[in-house]
């Protein structure tokens, strides 16, 4: 029985966890196992959690505007820890041009404001299925 496992994390100081929690619940309701780290996580804490929990995805929610600092940092730490197979994704207030830049660095799909839960759930299902096959 292979479950898709997702780590949902809120790095940085902003406390707006409404989106993170709604997404965590939607993924749970879609049959996934979701580990929620809570607020105020450093990139190091996020990656250590990903390692200990052996997750398929790390999903970051960032609304503070610090995405250009935090996403690359988490990606770098994931690679240092040898967790190249973990898909790094997330959402928040991220302008399209920043999304492009982050995507080029190797961060997977990012979701902006107004994305439907269905779209998010489908993304995790599709990417998850790919991983479980390979």
């Amino acid at each position, binding site marked *: 029985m292979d479950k898709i496992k997702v780590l949902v994390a809120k790095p940085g100081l902003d406390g707006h966890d409404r989106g993170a929690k709604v997404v965590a619940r939607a993924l749970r309701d879609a*049959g996934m196992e979701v*580990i929620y780290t809570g607020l105020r996580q450093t990139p190091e804490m996020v990656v250590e959690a990903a*390692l200990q929990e052996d997750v398929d995805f790390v999903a970051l929610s960032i609304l503070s505007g610090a995405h250009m600092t935090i996403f690359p940092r988490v990606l770098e730490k994931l690679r240092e820890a040898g967790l190249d197979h973990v898909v790094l994704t997330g959402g928040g207030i991220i302008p399209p041009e920043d999304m492009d830049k982050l995507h080029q660095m190797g961060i997977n799909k990012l979701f902006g404001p107004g994305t439907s839960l269905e779209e998010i759930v489908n993304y995790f299902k599709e990417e998850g299925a790919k991983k479980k096959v390979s």
Partner: protein
Amino acid sequence: MNYNDAAFLTERIPLGDKRALSRAITLVENEDPRALKIERDLYSLTGKAYRVGITGPPGAGKSTLVNVLAKEFKSRGNKVGIIAVDPTSPFTGGALLGDRIRMGAALADHEIFMRSMASRGGTGGLARTTTQVADVMDSFGFDVLIIETVGVGQLELDIAGAVDTTVVVLVPEAGGGVQAMKAGLIEIADIFAINKADRDGAEILKSELQDALSLMPAIKNGSWDLPVKLTVALEGRGVKELVDTVYKHKEHLEASGKFHKNRQSQAEIKIRDIVRAEIGKRLWMNPSLKSVLDSLSGFCVEGKIDPYSAARTFLQSAEAQR
């Protein structure tokens, strides 16, 4: 470097490779065929970790208590591992595992290893594979393993068969000693912790529990007087004393020979479980026996045979097949 290879993982785990441990746990949890080899090969390394179970009703503050207990054990020079079980939704098969939230700073220094487990249909407060996961973690070299049950309020009594010391956590408003007795908690508890003890009613609950205990002196462990400790986990109060009590219980188990006896009966349970699973596999996976079963169940429906006689007939055909 292949973290999908069982042999590689068994080689790396004793060397302290956390990623290998983490992956091995996943295989065990998934009941992957590769897990068998891992569990077998690492078994000789198990037995060193002292296992402490934390159980109790929802809202008792178990996660917070686990957090401070882990820190206290660590500060005494122990390598600490945690397994926290959360419920799997019976409707969707998904789970929300939120125990890391409570851990905060204890996990920040990366010296405590915590694994969240979804119950995945397991009843009794644990996942079906929690004991095996604990064994794999044991082989990694933890000195102390803390296992926290689901905590959704159902009977969570399996924990006692999986650990050395069971701490039952209650809160003043939990409904008193009689409730605890009814719920079977007294039978499994080695230590009671009344958490949130700064609230009204903590002392009352304590004396109620002690009264209830005095009525049933011979329930188990003879010479072990079941202690009732007061804690305020949120503020770290009473935690040192609780850990001291865990160690006292450990000494008691060792001095009385019960440590060995308990572990032996736990091993017996493991063997029984494996045998049961193996017999099941041999019986139900065998195609010719399956057709015997099909016709017997058909006869049952038609009233030609009763289920007990059918079972006897089935076992006879199984014997004959060997």
